[in-house]
Each structure stands twice: as C-alpha cells, then as structure tokens.
C-alpha cells in the first residue's frame, strides 16, 4: 500500500534537491568573493588543480556563448524547464536509484539556471589541467549533473541486464 503512494519520500527528496542548490550557490558565492579579493587571478591549489573565475554564457564546452541576451533567456528557461520536469519525474518515480539520479540532474540544472538568470552566465571555477592541457572549467552543479547521468546510465545498462 505504502509503495504505491507516489509522494512517499516527498519531503526527503525535496530537502535533498534544495540542499544541492544551496551547496552549489554557496560555493559559487564563496569563490566569487575569494576571486574578487584576488583580483580575479587564478589560484593554484594543487599541481593539477586551479581555482579560476570564468563566466559561461553558453552551454557545455562554451558552445553558443556569443548569443547575447536571447541566448541567456533561452538557456536559462530551457534548463529551468528540464530541471523542474526531472524533479517531478523523480518525485513520481518509485525506484530509489532513479529518484536520486534525477534529483542530482535537476539540482544541477536549476543551480546553473539560477546563475544564468542572476549573473547572466554560469560561474565556472574548477580548472583541472595537465601541463598546458586544460579540461574545460566546471562547477559543482556540473558535477551533480554528470554524477546523475552516470547513475542513470548505470541503472539503464547494468541493472536492466541483471534483471533480465
């Protein structure tokens, strides 16, 4: 009876969702303050990791970053819609694994959308590099999205095959 109830873990899931967004926004604000004090020059933390301050107005790998104001509204609306849709799907879903993976994706999407609305672009600050080869700078929301998608892929490929 309880398992058929769609909003069984409603508050728990909502709390995780809000926590993810707060975590993402807090790191971005903290990094922005640190960078402001450091005159926006990158800080070396490890020999392969820097803290930088990049504002991305486009999507992944800096694509469509020259779109202007229309670009900003389009991508912020897109990520907001996808984020809320995934949140609703996660709340309605019965599988705990899918629920968590969708929550991570939606949390990251909404976090980036908030950035696009308030700052006009997503703030990226984690810069991994090997000598002169830099991986595109990313943020905590990107980590959430990637983690969620990996969980979703894992569920699709491995768990389905296990079940037959």
């Amino acid at each position, binding site marked *: 009876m309880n398992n058929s109830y769609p909003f069984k873990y409603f508050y728990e899931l909502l709390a995780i969702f809000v926590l993810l967004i707060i975590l993402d926004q807090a790191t971005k604000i903290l990094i922005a303050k640190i960078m402001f004090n450091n005159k926006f020059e990158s800080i070396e933390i490890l020999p392969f990791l820097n803290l*930088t301050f*990049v*504002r*991305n107005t*486009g*999507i*992944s*790998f*800096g694509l469509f*970053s020259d779109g202007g104001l229309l670009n900003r509204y389009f991508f912020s609306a*897109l*990520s907001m819609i*996808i*984020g809320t849709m995934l949140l609703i799907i996660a709340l309605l879903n019965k599988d705990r694994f899918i629920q968590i993976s969708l929550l991570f*994706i939606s949390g*990251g*999407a909404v976090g*980036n959308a908030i*950035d696009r609305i308030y700052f006009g672009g*997503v703030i*990226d600050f984690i*810069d991994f590099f090997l000598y*002169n080869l*830099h*991986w*595109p*700078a*990313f*943020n905590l*929301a*990107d980590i959430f*999205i*990637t983690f969620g*998608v990996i969980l*979703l*892929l894992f569920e*699709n*490929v491995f768990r*389905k095959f296990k079940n037959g």
Partner: protein
Amino acid sequence: MFLGNLKMGKFIIIKIIFSLVLLFSLLSCSKLTPKSANEYTVTKKTPLVMPPDMNMTPPSNEKQKSFYNKKRISKKINDFNIENILTGELTNKNKIIKRKKNKVNKKIEYKNKLNRKKLVKTILRMKESVILK
C-alpha cells in the same frame, strides 16, 4: 526471445542517447584559453592623423637630438618625488648630475683658458708692434 532482446537493446540505446543529450544541454563547462584577453584592460589605438603640411621636411638630426635632450632633462626634473627623497635615491641622482655638471664645467674652463692665452698673445703682439713702430 531474440526480438525481445533487440527491442530491449534499442530502448536502452535511446535512453543512453537521451541521457547524453541531457548531459550536454545542461552542463555549462567553459573552455579556458591560455591567456584570454581581459575586456577591461584592452585599450584602443588612436587613429592615424594626417600631418599639418605634407611638404614639411623632417627635422635635422641636431634639432632632434636637442629636442630629445630637453625632453630627458624635463623627465629628470619630473622624476623627483617625495619617495625618492625619503628612500635616498635623490642623493644618488644628485651625485650623477653633479658629476655631469663638473665634466661640462671643466670643458668650459679649458676652453676659457685657451681663449685667455690667445687674447694675451694677441695683446702682446699688438704691444710689440706698437713698440716697434
């Protein structure tokens, strides 16, 4: 059985593609250029201006030299700050200027000496001629 597996496989592939599209559309990582230009530090070059007279010849070397010397002197005068005085850099600069001045004075003195000798010689010759007359 086989068809069922094929359908299942297709469904999984569609799901994988969907999740990858989701990933690329929601991610917002940005490519870092090695030294991207800072928009606040970029300064525009002033446009080229036509000279006032196309027939004007360029100034001679001596004139140019004197012009640059004047500029250097004015720069030296402007270089003196309170910081220089406090740090003691001014004394060093003063010493260098004094040395240069001494060199110039010595040259002038030498020239004056030569002129005096010439004058004395001419006066003596004049006197001799008068006496002889």
